[in-house]
């Protein structure tokens, strides 16, 4: 009896011995991952909190000696000629984001209704091949897009940027809406049709309310895409009053000596809305991905 218990204890102890290197290793890996993920963010804070002109040097202290929020104040108060139009540019970023969101949701929900609910046969081909757009190298679309915008007098026009962002957002949006639509029974549509509703009424009164969660997810995706996209905004918008915050950050690089602490503060202020949105909606943002994996 005692011999068995002792053997069991010894086996458990042996197992514990075999396990502690694994536990230690995973703890070390966790620590390394933490440093790896946070280091560039920490570097941004370090530069932004520096009181004079953005000293990028690391003095060995984990926290700067005299952290100062002055650069954030300068950004919010537009207190430097680089930051003159900050609030206007912030507004432009929002304006482009919200327009992209609204147009994406409207166009994609209409298309997904026709393809997924009304079963417009050939259109499925259209929505699927549109995804190939994502395999085209960026320059192959950006160069002709900008040239054509210039030719049609759309250069330095916010709407040209919105058109570009909507084009990138909708193929994915239609796909997600189509997939989400498969869990809503078609009988709802049929019942409404029997009661005499026109296709548009079915779309408006049945489809849209039932699709609300997916529409919200797709809208958020479009908003974040337009907020974070940079190439088209940089190439298309040329006057400072039409710039977005993304372009405003880039202009600091045009000078050799710029107040880098202001630039980092601007970059942090610019990053906060998407990070807040991402973490608030993390469940929904990651659901699409993991769903893809699980179906495998």
């Amino acid at each position, binding site marked *: 009896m005692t011999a068995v218990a002792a053997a069991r204890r010894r086996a458990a102890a042996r197992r514990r011995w075999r396990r502690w290197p694994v536990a230690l290793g995973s703890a070390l890996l*966790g620590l390394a*991952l*933490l440093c790896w*993920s946070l280091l*560039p*963010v920490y*570097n*941004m804070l370090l530069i932004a909190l520096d009181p004079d002109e953005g000293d*990028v040097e*690391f*003095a060995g202290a984990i926290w700067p000696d005299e952290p100062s929020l002055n650069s954030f104040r300068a950004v919010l108060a537009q207190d430097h000629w680089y930051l003159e139009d900050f609030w206007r540019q912030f507004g432009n970023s929002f304006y482009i984001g919200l327009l992209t969101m609204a147009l994406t949701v*409207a166009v*994609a929900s*209409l*298309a997904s209704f*026709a393809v997924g609910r*009304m*079963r*417009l046969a050939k259109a499925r081909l*259209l929505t699927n091949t*549109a995804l190939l*757009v*994502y395999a*085209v*190298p960026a*320059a*192959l*679309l*950006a*160069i*002709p897009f900008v*040239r*054509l915008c210039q030719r049609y007098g759309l250069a330095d026009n916010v709407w040209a940027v919105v*058109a570009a962002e909507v*084009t*990138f957002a909708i*193929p*994915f949006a*239609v796909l*997600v809406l189509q*997939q989400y639509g*498969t869990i809503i029974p078609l009988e709802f549509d049929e019942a409404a049709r029997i009661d005499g509703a026109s296709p548009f009424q079915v779309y408006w009164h049945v489809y849209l309310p039932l699709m609300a969660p997916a529409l919200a997810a797709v809208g958020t995706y479009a908003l974040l895409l337009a*907020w*974070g*996209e*940079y*190439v088209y905004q940089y190439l298309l918008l040329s006057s400072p009053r039409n710039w977005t915050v*993304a372009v405003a950050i*880039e202009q600091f*690089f045009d000078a050799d000596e710029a107040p*880098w602490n202001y630039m980092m503060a601007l*970059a942090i202020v610019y990053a906060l809305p998407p*990070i807040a949105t*991402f973490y608030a909606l993390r469940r929904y943002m990651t659901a*699409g*991905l993991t769903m*893809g*994996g699980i*179906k*495998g």
Partner: protein
Amino acid sequence: MSSPQHALALVPGVLGRRRVPRHPHLHGAELAWAVAFVVPYATVIAAFAVYPIAYAVWLGGNPALYAELFSDPAYPVAMANTAFFAGFGANTMMFAALLLSGFFTRRQRWVKPLLAVCLLPWALPAIPAFVSFHWMLIGEYGFLNSALWQLFGIDGPQWFNQGWLSLGCDIIAYVWKWLPFWTLILVGGRMAIPQELYEAADIDGAGVVRRFLHITVPLLGNLYLICTALAAIWIAGDFTAVELVSNGAPARASDVLATLSEHYAFDSGRPALGVAAALSALPVLIPLVIVLMRRIEARAVQL
């Protein structure tokens, strides 16, 4: 366009459930409504994607452009850099994602909060992330070199003084930004593998390595290959990382095709040459896309 933000776009569709559609033929008013609903979508795609791409192909159709391209010494360098960036970058990133996905499926209490922190690079927009990398690595006074000096007394190299070194920095910055995303996809793939398989193997005495080789590899293999091909395609078209981290330094030695064609088109005012540089990547990209499509189909058949 080929920004990995769009990975969101492909993966669910690619791996999603396929439904065989019934085809009740639409008639009259029904058909008119359905067509009207699709028209805005078709217009946007035609006007802002198909038309510009067709215009690009027309612009880059002149063979003389390619002769000029090959005579520019910057072009072969950019081509080699793109191949290395895409090939090495995608494989390193996906292998790291494979290992990390195993780590993040561990059932310890602190793994979930750690995952939340590790998603930060993905949540951060690309510009602040890459700008921060640029400042971390620049000169002898950047964060990394001063930290190396302060902590270990090591004199770090000038990161942007050699082409391959600055390209390496671009790759690291790119991997930093997108690793969480691919890790999450592979975590999803691993969660789909039934736990009983591992338990059965455990009872039969299979160790960690054999469980990985005989269960994880065959079941995750196709997803892994699809993701690697996708990542390579996206990296090959990526503009932002190289533009913001090394900016082609020194003297365009770390340029990739995307930044070089942008440079031709907008700094030198030669849009046709820029398009030609981008088009010259297609002989490699198109087979990759075809392989990808086949893989995706193979996967659908397995389902």
